[in-house]
C-alpha cells in the first residue's frame, strides 16, 4: 500500500513533465528560441520566472520545450535498449550453447567500445536527428540489458513451471514469452529506470556531436552543456535542468518500483 503511494508520486512527477512536454505548444509561454540581446543571462524575475540564458532566451519556456526532447531521449532510448537487449538476453540465457556464445561475445565487445566512438560512428552513419541520437544511446545501453536478462533467465529457466510449460507441449517461443519473460522483468525495470537518467544526460553529449537535438531547439542536456560555461555567472542555468533531470529520475524510479510491484501479482 505504502509502496503504491510512492509509485503514484512517481507517476505524478513523470506525468507532470510529460504533459508539459506535450502541451508546450499551447502553453502561454515565451518562444523558446526567441533571443533577446537585452536580456542576456538575467537571474529569475517576474518576467522570466526561471531567468534567461546566454542568448537571452526564456529558460522556463526552454525547460518546457526541452522536456519533450529529453523525455523522448530518456524513454525511447531505454525502450530501444530493452527491446533489443531483452530478447537477445532471453535467447542467450534460454538456449545456451552457441547462441549464448555468440551473443555474449558480441555483448562483451560492445561493452568495451567507448560510447563516444559508437556515437560518432552512428552519427555519421544515420545522420543527425534526435531519433538517431536515441538509437545511438539505445544501442549503447543494450549490452547491459542483455547481460542482466541473460543472468536472470539462467535462474528462471530451471523453475518447475518452465518444465511444466514444456510438459503441456508449448514451443520455445511460448515458453520464452509467456513463462520466462514475465518472471525476469523486475531487475530489468530497475535497470531501465536508472538508465533513463543516463540517457537524458547522454543526449546532450550527442547533440554536441551533431546527433541529438540541434541548436537552437532545447533539450535539458544541451542546456546543461551550455550552462557549464556560465557556472559562476549564471548558476540558475545549471540549476533548472539539473533539478528537472533529478525529478524525472526520481519519478521514473518510483514508478519503476511501483510497476515492478504491480507486475508481480504476489505484491498487489
Amino acid at each position: 500500500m505504502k509502496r503504491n503511494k510512492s509509485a503514484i508520486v512517481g507517476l505524478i512527477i513523470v506525468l507532470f513533465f510529460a504533459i508539459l512536454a506535450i502541451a508546450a505548444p499551447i502553453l502561454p509561454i515565451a518562444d523558446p528560441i526567441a533571443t533577446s540581446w537585452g536580456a542576456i543571462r538575467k537571474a529569475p524575475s517576474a518576467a522570466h520566472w526561471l531567468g534567461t540564458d546566454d542568448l537571452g532566451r526564456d529558460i522556463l519556456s526552454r525547460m518546457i520545450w526541452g522536456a519533450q526532447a529529453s523525455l523522448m531521449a530518456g524513454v525511447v532510448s531505454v525502450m530501444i535498449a530493452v527491446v533489443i537487449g531483452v530478447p537477445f538476453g532471453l535467447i542467450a540465457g534460454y538456449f545456451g550453447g552457441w547462441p549464448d556464445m555468440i551473443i555474449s561475445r558480441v555483448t562483451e565487445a560492445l561493452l568495451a567500445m567507448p560510447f563516444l566512438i559508437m556515437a560518432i560512428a552512428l552519427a555519421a552513419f544515420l545522420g543527425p536527428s534526435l531519433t538517431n541520437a536515441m538509437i545511438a544511446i539505445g544501442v549503447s545501453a543494450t549490452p547491459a540489458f542483455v547481460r542482466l536478462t541473460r543472468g536472470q533467465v539462467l535462474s528462471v529457466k530451471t523453475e518447475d513451471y518452465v518444465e511444466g510449460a514444456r510438459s503441456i507441449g508449448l514451443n520455445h517461443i511460448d515458453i520464452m514469452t509467456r513463462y520466462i519473460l514475465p518472471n525476469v522483468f523486475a531487475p530489468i525495470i530497475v535497470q531501465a529506470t536508472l538508465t533513463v537518467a543516463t540517457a537524458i544526460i547522454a543526449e546532450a553529449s550527442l547533440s554536441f556531436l551533431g546527433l541529438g537535438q540541434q541548436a537552437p531547439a532545447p533539450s535539458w542536456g544541451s542546456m546543461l552543456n551550455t550552462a557549464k560555461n556560465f557556472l559562476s555567472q549564471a548558476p540558475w542555468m545549471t540549476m533548472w535542468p539539473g533539478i528537472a533531470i533529478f525529478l524525472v529520475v526520481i519519478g521514473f524510479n518510483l514508478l519503476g518500483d511501483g510497476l515492478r510491484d504491480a507486475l508481480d501479482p504476489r505484491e498487489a
Partner: protein
Amino acid sequence: MTTTAPVLSVKNLSTSFLVDGEWKSVVRNMSFDVAPGETVAIVGESGSGKSVTSLSLMRLLAPATSRIEGEVMLNGRNLLALPEKEMRAVRGNEVSMIFQEPMTSLNPIFTIGRQISEVLVRHKNMSKAQARAETVRLLEKVRIPNAASRFDEYPHQFSGGMRQRVMIAMALASRPKLLIADEPTTALDVTIQGQILDLIKVLQEEEGMSVLFITHDMGVVAEIADRTIVMFRGDEVETGPTEEIFHRGKHPYTRALLSAVPKLGSMQGHDWPTRFPVLDATTGEPAEPVEVTDTVVLSKRPVLEVKNLVTRFPIRSGLWSRQTGAVHAVENVSFDLFQGETLALVGESGCGKSTTGRSIMRLVEPTAGNVALDGYDVMRLDTIGLRQMRRSVQMIFQDPFSSLNPRMTVGTAICEPFIKHRLGTTKQAKEKTADLLEKVGLSADMARRYPHEFSGGQRQRIAIARALALDPKVIVADESVSALDVSIKAQVCNLLLDLQQSLNLAFLFISHDMAVVERVSHRVAVMYLGEIVEIGPRAAVFDNPQHPYTKKLMSAVPVPDPSRRGIRRAISNDELKSPVRAMGYEPPRREYREVSPGHVVQIG
C-alpha cells in the same frame, strides 16, 4: 506428569498482523503450559496459526507489522515484556527453534561448523577452539558421520535429512530448556523422518528438555507427543493428553482431522482403492467412504509400456569438462500401465521417481530404453510429434507452489494447453476452463486469480485441472499430495479417484507417503537407487513385502496410534546411498523372482 512448575507458560496469547492498514487477528487467546521434559504438540491444518504461535513466543515476527498480546512466561520471566537485548539472550540459548525448511534455513555460504559454533560463541562465551570441539561433539550426537571432517563443509554438501540434523544440533548447542520444532520433518521422506523423530526423542531424554512440536501429521503426533493442542483457524480448540485427543477428541474439527489421517494397513480387505472419509469440520459428521469400482481395463494393450528405461546424468569435471561419471538416476526400469489403473512408484528421496516420470514424457532425454504410449514409440518422436504426444500424457508436478507461473492467472494457465494445441475456440477454452475448475472442486470464477491467491491444496487442484485440459490418457502425478495437510490430502486423493472413475485415467502415482499409496493404488512399484526392486499388486506388496528395502520403508511410516509411542526404530545414521557411478560402471545384471502372480522382487 506436570507436577513441577512448567518451563513455558502461555496465557492469552493473541497475535495480529497489519494487513492493508488493518489489524487482522491470526492467533487468538492461546493458553498452554509445557512442563520440563514434556513434549507438547500443536496440530492443525495449514494456515491455522501454528507457525505464528511459535514465532510469537520467540518474538521473531516483524515488530512493525505484527502485534503480540498476552503473556509468555519462561521460567518466571515474561518474554513479551523483555527488552530486545535480553530477548536475544533467550533466543538460541534458553529457547531454541528448528524450522520447517532444512533446505533454506541454513545460510548457504557459511560452513555448517561455523553456523553451529556461532551459537556457542554467542551464548556460552566459548573460544573458537572450544566451540569447534563442542560443535563436533554435537554433530556426532545428531549422528553425522565423520563429524570432525564435515565441520568445514557447506550446507549444499549435506542431504536434506542431514541438514535437518544440523539444524537440530544447532538448536541443541546451548542446551536449551525448551526446543520449538516447527514441522521439522514435513519436507522429509519417511525413512529420514523416522530417524529425526527418534533422534529428538533420544536427545530429549538425555538433556531433559521440553519440546513444543508443531506438525499437521497426526502420525507424528501420535508417536512423539505427551500432550496435544489442536488449533483451528487461529483458535485453540482442544487441549489434552495425546491419547485423550486421539481416542476421545471432542471438538468436531479434531475428529475430522483424525478421521482424515490415512493409516497404513487400513486397506486390508479392500480390493480396490477407496476414497477417504470426509468429515465436516464444523459438525464432525463423517460421510460414508465409498469403495471405488473397478476401473482397470486389462483386456486392452497397456496405455503405457516402459521397457528397460535408463536415464543417467553425466557428471563433468576436470580439464575440458570431460565426463567423469554419471548419476544413474533411472536404471533399467520396466513396467506397464493399463487404462484406468493407478501404479504407485514409491521410494526414498532421490531414488529416481521423478526422473522416471520425466523420462517417460521425455522432459529429460532417457539414455536408453523404450517407452510406448498407446503402442507408439515415444522415443522416436520429433519435436512436433513430441508436442502431440504430450497431449496424451500429462504430469502433475511435485511442487504445487513452483509449478505454476506466478504471473499467469490460473484460468490462462488451465486453458493454455487447450488453445495452444488448437483444440477449440477461445470461447470453448473458457468453457472448458470453467468446467475443469468445477470438476476439481473449485469455482469457475476463480479463473481470474493468480496462483498465490490459493492455498496449497487448491493450487494442487489447479495443477490437476491443467493436466486434464488436454484429456490425457495417462497422468504422472509426482508427489501430488505429499506436501498437503491431512484434510486437503484426503480431498485431493478423492478427487483423483473420482476423475479416474469418470474419465478412465491411468495414473503413475509417485509418492513416498505409504499410507496414501496404499489407499489409492492398484499396483505398487518400489524404487531403490534408480531400480525397481519390487513391484506387484498393492495388497501383495503391502501385506507381504519381500525386499529388505520395502520392509524398511514400511516400518518407517509413523503410525497414528499414541499407544505405540514408546516404540523405537533402530536408529541408523547411514546416509543415502549414492546413485553416482564412475565412468565405465557396468550395472550388474539383476535377477527377479515372482512371489505371486504379478508380484516380482529383485533378488540380486
